[in-house]
């Protein structure tokens, strides 16, 4: 059942599962529903064992009907439940976008404050596993455009473990994007946490010479790049956004005040991505702090190709991140 049993090591996958288990244990209003979350054990084996533990009512396999089961999650939330709806992969969430934007994100405002929708929607996102153009996109930054939603992107064991619980305490819809490539990631078992924060970005590595603003899979690639750069004497700060909406401007701007240079690293497409918003905000709020224009390293603007070498080329990698930082720190303002 457990990927690394009886040690104090765990995996990202297990951490998510523990978060689910805790939520199901601690609140009878919570239930998990989605395609293959039960009998199959979850498309990415995240929910394996939960059906046996909590039964088919609370770990509820749905038919293939994304629009209806997301809408049903909204209705269940209105009816006093705390649904966790799993959408297998971000591309399939497009089938439920009407419910997400036109209902979940809108209802509270449209009803003049009468009906809030405490739903949590989880989905796998991101490329890197050769799943090609209909299973690999990174749309979390795109979702962050929608008022009414909170967008979370756990990248660490702690966040994988605790963001879900915090999301369930929100009165409004929260979307959690789990990067597919992180599920096997290993690390120390996170400590228990109460009042876990889901509003602030986190500095994962302090540094002086430039700020890498990133999230999700980008965090790990950025940290790897930072190691390489450190060996060359370039000391970069790595900032994990954690929350793509609402963005934590303060932490970003504070970092810029220190480093005066920033590179946004984002697996998502560049044009109109979250990378643009971050660049724009830095300019708006810290223009005169900048020694160079904010740089962006993003996913190539292509539907994700299947073959390995093209997929690698389509996404930021530690080497390309390091290379971009080198150029950035050599630019003089």
């Amino acid at each position, binding site marked *: 059942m457990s990927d690394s049993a009886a040690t104090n090591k765990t995996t990202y996958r297990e951490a998510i599962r523990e978060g689910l288990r805790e939520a199901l244990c601690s609140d009878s209003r919570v*239930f998990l529903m989605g395609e293959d979350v039960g009998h199959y054990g979850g498309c990415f084996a995240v929910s394996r064992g939960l059906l046996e533990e909590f039964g088919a*009512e609370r770990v509820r396999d*749905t*038919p293939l*009907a994304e*629009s*209806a*089961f*997301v*809408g*049903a*999650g*909204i*209705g*269940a*939330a*209105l*009816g*006093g*439940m705390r*649904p966790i709806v799993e959408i297998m992969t971000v591309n399939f969430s497009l089938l439920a976008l*009407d*419910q997400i934007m*036109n*209902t979940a994100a809108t*209802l*509270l*405002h*449209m*009803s*003049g*404050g*009468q*009906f*809030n929708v*405490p739903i949590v929607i989880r989905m796998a996102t991101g490329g890197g596993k050769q799943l090609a153009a209909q299973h690999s996109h990174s749309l979390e930054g795109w979702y962050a455009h929608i*008022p*009414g939603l*909170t967008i979370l992107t756990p990248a660490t064991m702690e966040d994988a473990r605790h963001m879900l619980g915090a999301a369930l*305490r*929100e*009165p*409004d819809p929260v979307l959690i994007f789990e990067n597919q490539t992180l599920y096997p990631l290993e690390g120390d078992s996170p400590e228990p946490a109460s009042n876990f924060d889901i509003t602030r970005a986190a500095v994962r590595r302090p540094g002086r010479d430039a700020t890498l603003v990133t999230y999700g899979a980008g965090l790990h690639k950025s940290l790897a790049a930072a190691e390489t750069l450190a060996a060359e004497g370039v000391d970069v700060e790595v900032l994990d956004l954690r929350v793509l909406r609402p963005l934590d401007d303060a932490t970003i701007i504070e970092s810029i005040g220190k480093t005066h240079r920033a590179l946004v690293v984002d697996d998502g497409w560049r044009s109109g991505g979250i990378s643009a918003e971050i660049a724009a905000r830095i300019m708006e709020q810290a223009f005169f702090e900048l020694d160079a224009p904010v740089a962006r390293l993003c996913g190539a603007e292509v539907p994700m190709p299947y073959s390995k070498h093209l997929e690698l080329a389509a996404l930021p990698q530690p080497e390309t991140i390091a290379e971009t930082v080198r150029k950035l720190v050599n630019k003089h303002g």
Partner: protein
Amino acid sequence: MSGNFPTCDRDRALRLLEQMIRIRRFEEKCVELYGAQKIRGFMHLYIGEEAVATGVMEQLCPEDAVSATYREHGQALARGVDPGKLMAEMYGKQQGCARGRGGSMHIFDASTRFYGGNGIVAGGLPVAVGLALADRMQNRRNVTACFFGEGAVAEGEFHESMNLAALWRLPVLFVCENNLYAMGTALRISESATDIARKAEAYDVASAAVDGMDVLAVAEAARRAVDVVREGRPYLLECRTYRFRAHSMFDAELYRPKEEVAQWKKRDPITLFVAQMQDAGVLRDEDVRELERRVEREVAEAVSFAEAGNWEPVEDLTRFVYSEKSRL
């Protein structure tokens, strides 16, 4: 027409008739106010279809939930949403049930469990399924009544929702208001098989079609349907009706012959019911006049309430995007 349901006593007849007249007069007033530019945006009238909401709603308890479409003044009033708050909403006033943020298409009222007011055709069906799921998971024997037009039947959400409700045995009463047109698109242009009630078979859902111009027939069919639903099974009730007015306030009505409209108007649900009750000696002319007076006062009060309301302060524009209450 429905001599088969003669057992309607005076009290009930008065209640049903009052409800239908309330909807009719309220909306006639809305038309006037739209002309005076007090109401704006898209407005869809229920005139002609009053028997449906009236007959169905009679079968529900206060604990039950209701969801409807952009054409929902009738359901809102029949459900007991306060006419003043409703009118104020259409004015865009802070005293409106959605503080002026919703308008005609987005009537919501927590106190009567009225979940809108949905402007997306078929968008309310999945949500209704979820409301029923919450009831079932919490062992409440409530019904969720979900109103939608026959146009919505073509949407994938109809199909997905029927299946989910049936599969999970959820207490949803699907009420299809078949008024033969979706905007300007006639049913035969939108459905390869036009028998809506029969579509329930594909999901093993019980269903019936009923004359939607006959309030007692609707009430009786809805009563049977609610019995099934309260036992924990969905039900599809098709109510065959007709809208007497244009689709919305922007509609040249190019798509249907005037004679067809005239034909249907002969089956006006209010006129029919009055005649039936008078024939049966249950109601007298004076009863009807009395009702009309009462409703007229009520509508006038609703208008006054709306007129007296104020505008939400502009500073509050961004309120209610996220909840103000702290963590639940």
